[in-house]
């Protein structure tokens, strides 16, 4: 077990959020671990950057016509929210129910889908699947607008079973057909016109027209269906109710939550937490929030084994660094370039590569992506004019010996305030050796951007380049 409150809380906030500044960490510590878990699970006022301000200065984020501005719009939300789990769960479902701009050419509707993940993403999995099936972006992404009474299209039905719930091997081809029949007539308003516009990427004459769900009763196959051994005149909701009660669905949801919030690899110890989550899935009526509570309070999650057992995804990496540095708290030129940076690291918001989402874990790291990751974070954290970095400098000074930091104290202080981050002995030696080149650091009378402060910035830059910083 992790026996240090600060270390444990930092671990929780890396998983249920995007990491934490020391001020945030102290606020959560005041709640205690259980209280912090509840605060994260029950988001209230997110306090994020208000839409009116964003729209005033960013016309592209008011119209949300193009990908870059739309991804940046979500970035602002992640950067400025006080309810980070709300964004983290939306990101989780965005990766699992992966829906991409490339086919839709409709960013506003993708962001409406993300709103739905915020709204329903910690509620009942059954309700979430219903909302997902009514989501216009998903409908177009998997061609359910082409799923008709007289001519079914199985794309959505197939992926609902294979990628979004039970997983392959737990149903038959006949189940897919029957499932698809149940979702006939589930389409979007003005489906034919919107499909042409999406296919042509038409923005004419007056920009995009966002989408909404429409049920066409006359196009719905109301006949008897047999699905997973049950027979009836099932509609989509009935099919989802059957899916939700399957053991394989519980296993799927628990496993994917575990891999996103706890660890990339599942050990025997980790499997125990998954089984506890499956129990909660059924006892709570498929509530995701309750499954997360079980996970965060599990012995596994609080163990040393779970700490730094995940590779940070690019979005976690970038958002975490910006939040730590305290940048982009107001609308500013250049935010769309930051969202592009995540794409270069392999994770473009609103543009997962396929319906399978991103390949996570160690696959985030290749030589090109690693350079992008290190460069971005190093640049954010080494800018001593950034408010978050200034706060780190002030804390280092407050914890120093009359303004003097010995090289080891400088390295340890930066590792502590950026995490705390645990590094190997070899890494620690490199950091201390680097700090020792210029001897003790004297922060007495330091001024913004002076040489003393820049030494802190350089140490933060070096920490950002460590292997350990790549892990959550």
């Amino acid at each position, binding site marked *: 077990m992790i026996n240090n409150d600060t270390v444990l809380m930092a671990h929780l906030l890396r998983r249920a959020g995007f990491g934490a500044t020391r001020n945030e960490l102290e606020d959560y510590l005041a709640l205690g671990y259980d209280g912090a878990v509840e605060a994260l699970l029950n988001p209230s006022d997110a306090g994020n950057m208000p*839409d009116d301000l964003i729209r005033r200065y960013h*016309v592209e984020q008011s119209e949300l016509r193009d990908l870059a501005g739309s991804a940046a719009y979500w970035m602002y939300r992640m950067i400025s929210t006080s309810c980070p789990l709300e964004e983290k769960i939306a990101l989780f479902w965005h990766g699992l129910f992966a829906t991409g701009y490339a086919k839709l050419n409709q960013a506003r509707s993708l962001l409406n889908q993300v709103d739905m993940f915020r709204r329903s993403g910690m509620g009942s999995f059954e309700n979430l699947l219903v909302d997902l099936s009514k989501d216009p972006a998903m409908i177009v992404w998997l061609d359910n607008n082409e799923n008709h009474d007289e001519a079914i299209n199985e794309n959505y039905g197939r992926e609902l079973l294979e990628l979004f719930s039970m997983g392959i091997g737990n149903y038959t081809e006949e189940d897919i057909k029957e499932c698809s029949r149940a979702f006939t007539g589930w389409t979007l308003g003005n489906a034919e016109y919107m499909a042409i516009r999406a296919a042509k990427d038409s923005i004419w004459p007056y920009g*995009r027209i*966002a989408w909404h769900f429409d049920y066409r009763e006359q196009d719905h196959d109301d006949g008897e269906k047999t699905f997973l051994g049950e027979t009836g005149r099932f509609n989509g909701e009935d099919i989802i109710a059957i899916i939700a009660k399957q053991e394989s669905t519980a296993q799927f949801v628990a496993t994917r939550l575990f891999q996103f919030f706890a660890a990339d690899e599942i050990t025997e110890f980790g499997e125990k937490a998954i089984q506890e989550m499956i129990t909660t899935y059924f006892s709570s009526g498929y509530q995701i929030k309750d499954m997360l509570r079980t996970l965060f309070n599990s012995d596994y999650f609080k163990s040393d084994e779970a700490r730094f057992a995940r590779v940070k995804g690019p979005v976690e990496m970038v958002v975490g660094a910006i939040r730590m540095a305290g940048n982009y708290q107001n609308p500013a030129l250049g935010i769309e370039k930051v969202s592009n940076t995540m794409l270069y690291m392999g994770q473009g918001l609103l543009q997962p590569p396929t319906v399978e989402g991103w390949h996570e874990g160690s696959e985030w790291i290749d030589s090109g992506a690693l350079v992008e990751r290190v460069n971005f974070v190093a640049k954010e954290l080494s800018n001593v004019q950034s408010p978050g970095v200034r706060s780190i400098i002030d804390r280092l000074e407050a914890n120093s010996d009359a303004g003097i930091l010995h090289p080891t104290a400088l390295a340890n202080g930066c590792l502590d305030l950026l995490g705390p981050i645990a590094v190997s002995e070899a890494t620690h030696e490199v950091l201390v050796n680097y700090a020792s080149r210029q001897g003790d650091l004297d922060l007495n009378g330091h001024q913004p951007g002076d040489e003393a402060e820049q030494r802190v910035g350089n140490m933060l830059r070096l920490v950002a380049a460590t292997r350990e910083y790549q892990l959550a």
Partner: protein
Amino acid sequence: MSTQTKSSRISLDYVKTIGIVNNGFNGRGFANPYDLTTDDEGRIFVLNRCDPARASAIRVGICNLDDEYLEEFGRGNGSGDGQFTWVVAMAKDRQNRLHITDEFNHRVTTYTTDGEYVSHWGKPGANDGELNGPAGIAVDSSDNLFIVDQNNSRVQKFTTEGKFIATWGEFGNSDGQFNLPWGVAVDKDDNVYIADWRNDRIQKFSNDGQFLVTFGSSGDGEGQFQRPTSVAIDPDGFIYIADWGNERVQILGPDGSFQLILKGEATLSKWAEEYLASNPEEKAERDISNLKPNLPAHLNTPYHISSQTEPYFWGPVSVTIDKKGRLYVTETNRHRFQVYQKR
């Protein structure tokens, strides 16, 4: 469905829509227009803010009511002579010069109405004559410029050459105070009206900055506002407000009494018709579509409704009145303006 709430004292007829989204860097159409003004020759000047992908083409486009796209000018994105970054508003003086505010570069740039760059002035700061995010701009009968200095929570009065004359206002929500103000207009008596954006109200001042009266409060009811961006006054004293957050235009009487709501009723512009004529498959489906749909409850907000209801205003950022009683409503998110005629 009618998109006007009727008043017995004032009535407007919808005339037409002009515009089409311009996805490129020049030519016919608009790119996130932010303001509009007219001249006595029937020319309509449209200030295109442009999104970051098209920032290098920030420009003023010129057209007329006969749907002719005449020309455009601008020197691209940046802080050099004649360049812009975040343009907000535009006012024409009595020497036929256009003064354009840039809230990023903290300055005003002047062009002739023939598109010749004249000069720019202004520097960042909070002292008299300095600017921090200049937004709305208007001209009075003596050719003085009133500039809304948004981040300094004040209004400043200048000559058209940029010489400081006066200032008033401070941050707050009491009379004469502002919270991120945006638009400004001058009436025939040279009184000054400010769209006090984040206080959801319009404030009226004398020409020298004496507070006179305030109109409106926060909300979506009649006479209430959500982030008003622009205000215009007609010769009879009626007050037109771009009620941006409510995606509508409201008209108040000279005494501030509520008169009328416009929600927009855009039809196809001539340019839009030409696009659809060359895309018959798209037109055929469009013709049988319902462009005023009923939306699910979670989308029942003015923003979402306008994002899916093409005839309605979406991002109505600017209202302009010309000498013939026409109202022009500029829509950022629809790349067009709708024209109404006062009866």
